[in-house]
């Protein structure tokens, strides 16, 4: 990806210093109408500046959980507060200024005739000045390297590009929190890496990033905190390392270890007990072990 212009994305940085949770759920339970409960008693505090991964098998309640973070779903029991606002009494359109939500399927949102129009749509809704719209839209489009294609019809883009366009349209809103629902599903290796690099940069620039994913390699490499969901409950809330060391959790949820962690496991028999999460960590551990 070309050079990025994340200048104005950095204002949420000051939030990092505060300890106040930006997303807070208390005893959150939810059941879909006429069905059994999809979430039960979830208590979470998500602080500004976290890079959070939400993992778990299909139907474990991951998407149901994150849909509470911008008020798309209202809790059946308990409550959810976003930056102090109760989601029950706040409009989704208002919460959309705090929490940006990128959906898995970009085709559910793309309706405009050009890339530019699509990306700037949300900003126009928030009634920003023409210059601000211009500036934030260009920044967002540059961040996903679609600026050169701004006059194209969205249908003329590839699936990966459309996913990035959907991401840009949310990025442009400049929200302090960003929720990515399975951002890398169906993407080739290159686009997957681009999306992750973007998420990492946004996180580095001070945004809170929440990611729903099945991709354990991503979790190992990028997340600072992992929440494991099973049957509607958050059964584990820890660092990636702790999760990958917790056999009970891994077994009961059927999570697969990332390849590097698998190799590290294989090395346990040889007296190397460190659970490594990235390639460089593994190399370092091996070299240290060999030297001794």
């Amino acid at each position: 990806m070309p050079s990025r212009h994340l200048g104005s994305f950095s204002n949420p940085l000051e939030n990092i210093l505060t300890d106040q949770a930006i997303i807070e759920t208390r005893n959150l339970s939810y059941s879909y109408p006429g069905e059994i409960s999809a979430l039960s008693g979830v208590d979470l505090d998500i602080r500004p500046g976290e890079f959070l991964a939400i993992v778990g098998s299909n139907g474990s309640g991951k998407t149901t959980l994150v849909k509470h973070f911008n008020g798309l779903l209202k809790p059946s029991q308990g409550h959810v507060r976003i930056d102090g606002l109760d989601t029950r009494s706040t409009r989704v359109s208002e919460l959309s200024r705090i929490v940006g939500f990128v959906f898995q399927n970009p085709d559910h949102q793309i309706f405009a005739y050009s890339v530019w129009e699509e990306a700037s749509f949300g900003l126009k809704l928030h009634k920003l000045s023409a210059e601000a719209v211009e500036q934030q839209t260009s920044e967002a489009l540059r961040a996903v390297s679609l600026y050169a294609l701004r006059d194209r019809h969205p249908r003329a883009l590839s699936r990966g590009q459309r996913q990035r366009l959907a991401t840009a349209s949310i990025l442009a809103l400049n929200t302090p929190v960003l929720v990515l629902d399975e951002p890398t599903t169906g993407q080739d290796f290159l686009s997957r890496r681009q999306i992750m690099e973007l998420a990492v940069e946004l996180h580095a620039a001070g945004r809170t990033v929440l990611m729903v994913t099945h991709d354990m390699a991503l979790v190992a490499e990028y997340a600072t905190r992992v929440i494991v969901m099973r049957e509607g409950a958050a059964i584990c809330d820890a660092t990636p390392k702790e999760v990958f060391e917790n056999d009970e959790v891994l077994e009961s949820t059927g999570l697969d270890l990332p390849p590097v962690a698998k190799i590290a496991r294989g090395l346990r028999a040889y007296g190397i007990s460190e659970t490594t999460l990235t390639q460089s960590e593994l190399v370092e551990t091996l070299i240290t072990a060999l030297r001794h």
Partner: protein
Amino acid sequence: MPTIDIQYFKEESFVHRLHPFTKILFEISVLVIAAAFNEPLFLAVVILGIIGVAVLARIPARKFRYMWVLAYIVLFMVITQGVWFTSFGDFGDITVDFEWRTLFHLWPAWAPGGPRIPVILQGANYGFSLGLRVVAISLAFPILVLTTHPSDLTRFLSQVRIASWRIPYNFIFVFTTAFRYIPTVSREFDQTLDAQRSRGVHFGGYNPIRQIKVLTTLFVPVLTSSLLSAHDLTLALETRAFGAPTERTFIHEVHWRRADWGVTALLIIIAVACLVLANSFGYGVLPYTPQRNF
């Protein structure tokens, strides 16, 4: 927005076992009976009967949840008929004694130039019955689709022949596929709604021009993806030799049972009885409506 979930579901019930023709006859008799009466009380009984059939078919109530939108249709009918009913003019020879009763005025007395635009009780009543007709038909229709396997319906329709003419299979396919896609499109609609709300689109404001603009953000993605999936469907059909010039066979054979004779006879008797009651004796027909012509 509740998802419209009218897709066949497997269940061992009396209604499920009936022949598709019997169920189509049920739909037709509901149409006939609902058209015969226009008194709210009679239509309410018809609706209760339909609910009885739904219970017999063990259809869970949540499948009908989306029907609350019909409340708006009923309300719309009540108000429009309440206002305009008396202005239809020619009522023919109405022999019954009655007088128009004004419920209230849309333009109230305290407003300048008021009171104007009266809402007439009889009109509102007639509007209510028109609304109930819509409710009755909308309730009955999903029963056919929910309790009949799509391929049984296809099978039945392909058996229909008048002399040497048959319903072309393409038409039958379009017909049955359309039903199959209602829930899919409805789900698509919900997901689009979520995606647009997440980026700050507010649905349901008071500015009508803005609402039209906002609705394009819903309909464009839904229509586009429907067209694209229709295109995918044609490809999937081609690869499975759709339209191959051989006689089609079906895994499921649908059988006409003794119960079907019974239900058919019962439906015809009920429908004819209702027609006679309404047209010859005037039961279930409001006295001040043109339908009452004897």
